[in-house]
């Protein structure tokens, strides 16, 4: 009957929503990340002005809600008269592209080497592990600055550098996983069945470590973005006039003593939002995908 039917329907709907909330799915962080990605993709459409060209007559305009602000520049302008909102929007593109690419690069490299090291053992393992130790010893930021100083700043170089700096984090964890996976029955059966080492690594080991690799990836995303911002801040990151949030912070520092707060606070808020969201999402993924990793 109609009333019963609609009650069951609404119950099913409520059950569906409850299922979504099971595991405390972080709706807000994911939404923020999705929004940032969309902003990065559609930057040309969304940004009101060209982020690299400024009108010198409009320098240091505050956001529109303050005295001296205009509606033409909602979030104010910087020291070269460039619109802050547009620069923030295009800066999202740099952060997303560099962040994701670097994380994927580091992940592929680290997971690959981790699998090789863990499964093959012997001298391969020793060499890779000693290399990992040595590279882990150098603090990531110092290492990145050093490499950037040698090869010179460009977006591509930064991605490669960040990948080279952070692959060790993956390799360590993945190797541990592979070591325990090696003892599992299905791997042993595959060996008995005569599979080559390469096949085993590709078909049996790899799919099982992808979980950990993904979780690590989300956790690393925040770290990579902060490092990229730090590199840009120090002047060895993405080169100007391309807008990057870290670079905006460096520029903003010049106006700090004069009280031009929006040049510092706003880019930092963007960084903070992105990193926080990535971290929260990573935390949730970690708990959801693999309870064993809760100790990480």
């Amino acid at each position, binding site marked *: 009957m109609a009333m019963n039917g609609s009650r069951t329907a609404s119950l099913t709907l409520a059950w569906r929503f409850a299922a979504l909330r099971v595991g405390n799915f972080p709706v807000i962080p994911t939404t923020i990340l999705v929004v940032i990605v969309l902003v990065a993709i559609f930057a040309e459409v969304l940004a009101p002005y060209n982020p690299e060209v400024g009108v010198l007559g409009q320098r240091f305009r505050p956001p529109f809600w303050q005295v001296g602000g205009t509606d033409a520049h909602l979030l104010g302008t910087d020291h070269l008269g460039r619109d802050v909102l547009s620069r923030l929007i295009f800066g999202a593109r740099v952060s997303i592209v560099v962040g994701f690419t670097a994380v994927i690069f580091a992940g592929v490299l680290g997971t690959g080497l981790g699998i090789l090291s863990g499964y093959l053992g012997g001298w391969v393992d020793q060499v890779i592990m*000693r*290399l990992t*130790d*040595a*590279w882990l*010893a*150098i*603090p990531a*930021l*110092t*290492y990145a*600055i*050093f*490499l*950037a*100083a*040698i*090869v010179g700043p460009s977006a591509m170089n930064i991605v490669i550098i960040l990948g080279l700096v952070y692959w060790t984090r993956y390799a360590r964890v993945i190797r541990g996983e592979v070591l325990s996976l090696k003892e599992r029955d299905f791997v042993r059966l595959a060996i008995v069945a005569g599979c080559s080492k390469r096949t085993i690594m590709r078909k049996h080991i790899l799919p099982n470590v992808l979980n950990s690799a993904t979780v690590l990836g989300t956790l690393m995303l*925040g770290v990579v973005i*902060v490092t990229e*911002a*730090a590199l840009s*801040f*120090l*002047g*060895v990151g993405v080169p100007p006039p391309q807008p990057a949030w870290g670079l905006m*912070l460096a520029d*903003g*520092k010049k106006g*700090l*003593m004069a*009280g031009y*707060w929006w040049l*510092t*606070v706003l880019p*930092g808020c963007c*960084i*903070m939002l992105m*990193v*926080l969201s990535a*971290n*929260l999402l990573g935390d949730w993924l970690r708990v959801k995908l693999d309870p064993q990793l809760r100790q990480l």
Partner: protein
Amino acid sequence: MKSYILRRLGYSLISLLLLSLTIFLFVRVTGDPAVLLVEPGASKADVEAIREQFGLDRPLIVQYGEFMWNILRGNFGNSFYYRMPVLELYLSRLPNSLMLALAAMSFSLLIGIPTGIIAAVRVNQWWDNAGKIFALLGLSLPSFWVGLVMILFFSVYLGWFPSSGSGSVLHIIMPAFALGWYFAAAHMRLTRSSMLEVLGSEYVKLARLKGLPEALVISKHAFKNALIPVLTLAGINLVIMVNVAVVVETVFAWPGIGRLLYEGVSFRDFPVVQATVLLGGSMIVIVNLVVDILYAVIDPRIRLER
């Protein structure tokens, strides 16, 4: 015991070797090292002269040997900008970084440990949740942005603290906080989980069964054992702090080795950059070695393990 120490020493030496080899190779392999090693604004003739002087056309092995030989004698080259031996320059700035790191570490321990303990004792209640937020923010906010916002707030708007330089207690407070927040968060998290683990252990159960008041159980039995991993981490973090303070030191113009690295990069003073990375990495390897050995001395399970 001795075999453990020897083995750890061996691993550390290999790490140091690999470290220096990596740095050496990166410089030689990517692009033209002569351009890096010569002063900015030099002519072509100068570049050729440098190539001669450093013997950059000799086989890599020979160059590496000379590189290492120089390092072992303490010769890291001369700074282009400051016109003095790099090692001397580095060592003169190191105490400043250490001072900042110590201040930041004190802050992080003073805030982190009590917060972690209370969070563990009152799990999932108000204090735990507040602590989690504090930790989350600390781990997510870039330290240099925290520094910049603090300057904006406390120097520009309120005028309480000086915004840059060093020299008085007032100068160190803001950079120490900016640098320390991340580590306070890390220490808080570790203290909390360590404390939770200890509170669930057998001897704590026994203490409770004996009828001891909870405060005594916590302070006398649980506290010290929970602290062990935290203090180990703190020791390693101190050295890490010295190295990652680059951006904070730059923001506050604090004259430490982080600022030195920044200056080296800005002024294209390559010997400085190379030495900072080498020395920084070596410091960490050595501290890790010391901590591992100390751990083995304290905890017999570790040295009998492998």
